[in-house]
């Protein structure tokens, strides 16, 4: 391409087409080098007004290939086929960071004062959360894994991060915990746990088990099918795996109303009183088919951390 033609590039989409060396028009489908799904995501960012840098384009393409088992960090596992939600949180505003990697035609919504920056979507600690996914998107008849990478190391004070795994549709924001299962990291006692519905927890790690005791890094959990099928969890915190083979039958009613993603809130009296919106920063989120072995989890950890490092979001 001549400089004269380069100078006529008028949009980020044009620039993206130039980078991948094709002559395709909008939505041309990845031609030259990039994985077509990665290219669709890059194009969606361009349409939303964000110019993807060369480094970001390489990072995105490598990560999509990794999710498919054909990338530089993973040539074995397929996490793409069962992917329900992929959120790389790239861009400078909600419309850009909300674009879903697995379906760039869709985007999640954000509520309250979410802060958007190069480290991802960050809660303001006052009233911010995001709409991670619709709980009815997850089938009960398969194992599901949820993974989040938190890009800010906050001091280990009273931070609690709830991430809703699945719940009855009408209970997404306002209901109790019935028919939900969740990944929770609790930093005041430095531990993580999962639970299902009225069974308050299925697996909790010991106090002090998060080392270092800070919010940054990769957390994950696999839920093994429905409780009727035996249930059970694997939890992954900062590279350490914990397993609970079956659901523990402990009744524990909670008044907490769960918000997927950045926060939880509790109800006091007839009027909801917010008291637990957290300032945690999210750089990545993934929901896919169950990750079941330490080797697979280690590979996924390597894959996600490589992506975060390429985006300068990795935390020590």
């Amino acid at each position, binding site marked *: 391409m001549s400089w004269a033609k380069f100078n006529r590039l008028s949009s980020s989409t044009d620039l993206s087409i130039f980078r991948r060396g094709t002559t395709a028009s909008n939505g041309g489908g990845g031609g030259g080098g990039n994985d077509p799904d990665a290219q669709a995501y890059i194009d969606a960012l361009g349409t939303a007004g964000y110019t993807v840098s060369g480094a970001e384009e390489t990072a995105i393409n490598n990560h999509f290939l990794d999710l498919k088992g054909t990338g530089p960090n993973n040539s074995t596992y397929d996490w793409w086929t069962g992917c329900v939600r992929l959120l790389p949180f790239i861009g400078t*505003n909600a419309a850009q960071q909300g674009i879903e990697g697995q379906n760039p035609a869709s985007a999640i919504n954000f509520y309250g004062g979410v802060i958007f920056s190069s480290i991802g979507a960050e809660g303001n600690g006052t*009233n911010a959360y995001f709409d991670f996914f619709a709980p009815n998107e997850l089938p009960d008849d398969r194992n599901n894994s949820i993974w989040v990478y938190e890009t800010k190391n906050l001091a280990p004070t*009273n931070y609690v991060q709830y991430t809703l795994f699945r719940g009855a549709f009408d209970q997404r924001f306002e209901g109790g915990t019935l028919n939900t299962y969740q990944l929770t990291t609790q930093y*005041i006692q430095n531990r993580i746990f999962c639970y299902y519905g009225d069974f*308050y927890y299925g697996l*909790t790690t010991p106090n002090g088990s998060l080392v270092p005791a800070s919010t940054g890094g990769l957390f994950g959990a696999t839920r093994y099918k429905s409780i009727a099928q035996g249930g059970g969890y694997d939890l992954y915190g900062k590279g350490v795996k914990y397993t609970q083979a079956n659901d523990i039958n402990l009744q524990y009613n909670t008044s907490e109303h769960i918000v997927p993603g950045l926060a939880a809130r509790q109800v006091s009296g007839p009027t909801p*009183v917010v*008291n*637990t919106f957290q*300032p945690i920063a999210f750089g990545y989120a993934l929901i896919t088919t169950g990750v079941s072995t330490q080797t697979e989890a280690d590979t996924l950890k390597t894959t996600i951390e490589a992506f975060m490092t390429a985006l300068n979001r990795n935390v020590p």
Partner: protein
Amino acid sequence: MNLTELKASEYDKFVGLLTPIQKDQLVGRQYAPNSYFNPVLDGNDPPNWIISVEEMANCVNPHYEWVKALPIIPWVAPAPPEPIETDEAN
């Protein structure tokens, strides 16, 4: 104090004060694409309805430009949540 007097580094220390009517006007409404207002109660007694300074500063919805002129008050967080207790962990 108003929004223009605040530095971005001070956003987490202040919020915009709403009347109950204003709160009702904002619930379920977008202040920017894919971004919704989320009025909440603060920790004062009695509590105030508030929105964050981020929502005020980043509002591009012309129907709600008035949020930029809301009174600014210090953020008083509600009481912190109790740690989640489980028998096994203690």
